[in-house]
């Protein structure tokens, strides 16, 4: 309490000046001035645009290839016709990278939304109701967290038959306890704040306090985590695809599988490992950069 109090007092002297707009708007303004945030947002935009407009951007079909030019010791490199060369099946590498963004984005967004939604529901119940509901749900989350994420995802993907849907469910499940615990902790922190006490002293009903005051004020860390978790989801999806647990149809371009498929060609065509690797790094980096910048903007403690 006293830490929160002195913290708030510190803030009150910091912000005595007239700052227009809400705290959210203030955070947004700070983001726009932060080069890290801008770079992150630019990379994410690039990633999303490529994924959404893949059919228009890709110069060739990602699935039809010409095997005649391929041997184990020779895979054609970049040329005017194929800027990134051909893959081991004679397909245009650039087009496959472009289409690969679709699988990444789809898996990332769907699995994360699902995981975050379920996790936040559990977290809100635990943090809002407290008591034995909280204890029970959190012990459950502890058990889920005790299992290593990727290992768990592998198990789920293996049990459910390899497919994009299995990958999404696996990654969603891994994310559930992360978001549940985060939202709960954040809500419990808010629940003991003075403005909640003030609302109680006014006679505001309990569920209204939880939904109207506690929850909205607890979302900042969840937004940050969501951005960072998207990065993790993309890596996990690539990892699962690399292990052969991705889409059931091998012709669907996925960056993780593209990496795996080039293993025997590492000597003759190292560029085939480089390009999907780069694509993964760039998209992951975008979400990580934006996530870190968001954390800084939303958390007054990290502000300078």
């Amino acid at each position, binding site marked *: 309490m006293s830490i929160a*109090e002195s913290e708030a007092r510190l803030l009150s002297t910091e912000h005595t000046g007239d*700052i227009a707009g809400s705290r959210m708007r203030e955070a947004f303004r700070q983001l726009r001035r932060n080069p890290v945030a801008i770079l992150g947002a630019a990379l994410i935009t690039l990633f999303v645009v490529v994924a959404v407009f893949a059919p228009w951007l890709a110069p060739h079909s990602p699935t039809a290839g010409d095997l005649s030019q391929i041997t184990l010791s020779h895979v054609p490199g970049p040329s005017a016709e194929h800027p990134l060369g051909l893959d081991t099946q004679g397909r245009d590498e650039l087009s496959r990278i472009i289409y690969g963004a679709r699988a990444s984005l789809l898996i990332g967004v769907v699995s994360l939304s699902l995981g975050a939604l379920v996790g936040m529901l559990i977290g809100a119940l635990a943090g809002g109701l407290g008591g034995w509901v909280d204890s029970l749900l959190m012990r459950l989350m502890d058990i889920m967290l005790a299992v290593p994420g990727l290992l768990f995802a592998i198990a789920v993907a293996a049990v459910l038959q390899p497919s994009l849907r299995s990958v999404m469910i696996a990654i969603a499940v891994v994310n559930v306890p992360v978001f549940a615990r985060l939202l709960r902790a954040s809500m419990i922190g808010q629940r003991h704040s003075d403005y909640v006490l003030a609302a109680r*002293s006014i*006679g505001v009903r309990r569920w209204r306090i939880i939904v109207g005051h506690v929850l909205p004020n607890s979302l900042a860390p969840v937004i940050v985590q969501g951005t960072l978790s998207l990065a993790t989801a993309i890596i996990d999806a690539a990892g699962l695809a690399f292990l052969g647990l991705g889409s059931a149809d091998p012709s669907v371009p996925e960056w993780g599988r593209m990496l795996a498929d080039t293993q025997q060609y590492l000597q003759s065509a190292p560029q085939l490992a480089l390009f999907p690797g780069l694509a993964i790094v760039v998209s992951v980096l975008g979400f990580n950069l934006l996530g870190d910048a968001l954390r800084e903007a939303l958390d007054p403690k990290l502000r300078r």
Partner: protein
Amino acid sequence: MRGLEVHFPIRKGVLLERPVGAVRAVDGVDLDVERGTTFGLVGESGCGKSTLGRAILRLVEPTAGTVRFDGIDVASLRPEPLRRLRARMQMVFQDPLSSLDPRQNVESILVEPLRTHRVATGKDARRRARELLDVVGLPAAAAARYPHEFSGGQRQRIGIARALALNPELIVADEPVSALDVSIQAQVVNLLEELQKEFGLTYLVIAHDLAVVRHISETIGVMYLGRIVEQAPSDELYATPRHPYTIALMSAVPIPDPEVEDRRERILLRGDLPSPANPPSGCRFHTRCPFRQPTRCHDEDPALRELGPGHAVACHWAEQVATGEIRPHPTAVPS
């Protein structure tokens, strides 16, 4: 209020929590606040003032005792009647910023109590919000702004406006000015005074130093480690403090007259406030009391006794201290 106790259980355990002890934050307090008057509650930080104030409003559950408000037993009220009663008793908080939801603008903060109790909605509520701003001396333009845009003093005015929204009868003000700059403390205290006159409010004002409550309180209670150790009309408490703890507190308040200031003794309290989880035996103040006697102090709990009209003290030796028969120990009187 009678025999009020608030104990916070100290819990331990990994899977199932079980109480292993209790923080006796408020331990057997009786006090009466007369309608239309101000009761000042003073004591060191951590002695249980906030807990007492919150227990009166039943924002924390009392472990024992009764709180009567206008004949209503607050401590045993069921949730819905309690919720309705809240309209009649309000609270002003120590830290004005943290007591305001950062995502609500001022209008929404002021409309919330009106809407909660269905006093006013829509346009009426918004008009009332502007009225309230006017009452606490803020411009109507403040309505659209957010708490972080204001100074500390302005924020406390918003907090006061919210407390006034439902025309309460009792306001518990928990250290309403201690988070504010000294230069604006007086303004806020004056505002509270004016509002009391205008609306006939009853106040319980909590403070950690005597200076703040002196002028606005009819009666002052001095609290130490969960107990009231002295209670008296304000002027009398200042003129003739009887309890050793009050005497020590008073000796720390500077006196404007330099001659008196030079002559008087300063009694400094040594050591920290003992833990309320494990209060000292006998008189709770005996571990720090400069007047401590070899008998009774450490093994007999002093009751709050009436020494004069409306003046009660919880010290075995209050009479002897008053007559000067017992002097403070020299070690406690540097300079």
